[in-house]
């Protein structure tokens, strides 16, 4: 399930939805990304997330399909917000459900790592020096690179 939206989301309801009505799920792993009030040492007032409507949904669906291909998932979810967000607000939720905890944990990390380098979002931060477009980080490329070779660790 892919959702690209301006409004906030209800984490408890979204995670419950992943396993609703089923009794064969062993574990649900999730990651919530939040707006921090500091970035690269500078204070950040708020940020505006711009994205590429159409391509965003397409890329997120591809990333989710890749996770489904690599791990035995029973359900998965990516919710990503856009627009202006204050520090402390939720930006993104990724979650995976699987019979096995290792698959859930690994695929959850995979989703957020790939999303960071492949989904067309850009952050404009409000700083004391004015609005600043966030630069991509090598560490994010490194994190995505970890998953460049499909692998699957047995439970």
């Amino acid at each position: 399930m892919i959702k690209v939206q301006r409004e906030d989301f209800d984490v408890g309801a979204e995670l419950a939805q992943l396993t609703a009505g089923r009794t064969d799920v062993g574990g649900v792993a999730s990651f919530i990304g939040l707006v921090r009030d500091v970035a690269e040492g500078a204070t950040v007032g708020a940020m505006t997330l711009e994205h590429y409507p159409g391509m965003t949904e397409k890329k997120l669906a591809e990333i989710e399909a890749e996770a489904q291909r690599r791990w035995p998932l029973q359900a998965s979810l990516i919710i990503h917000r856009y627009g202006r967000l204050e520090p402390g607000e939720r930006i993104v939720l990724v979650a995976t459900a699987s019979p096995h905890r290792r698959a859930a944990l690994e695929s959850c990390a995979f989703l957020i790592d790939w999303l960071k380098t492949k989904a067309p979002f850009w952050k404009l931060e409000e700083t004391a020096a004015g609005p600043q477009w966030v630069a991509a980080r090598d560490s994010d490329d490194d994190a995505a690179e970890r998953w460049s070779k499909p692998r699957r660790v047995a439970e």
Partner: protein
Amino acid sequence: MKILYFAWLKSKVGIGEEAVTPPAEVATVGALLDWLATRGPKHAAALANRSIVRVAVNQEYAGLDHPVKTGDEVALFPPVTGG
């Protein structure tokens, strides 16, 4: 051909979208970037450092050799920073 600009590329070019009709010999992403840079000083400034410009053709990431043709949607943007 529809050109889209995102993030600081949009700010620098001054518009988010434009319809263009490049000459027939502009058949690749690389040639298109070269041609777009000649459209004015803002375009030239936005495209000065190609190493931080990413391109998608019809919503798929594309390298400089990727073909472009009439009717394509070509998006120019910096490396992504979502999540």
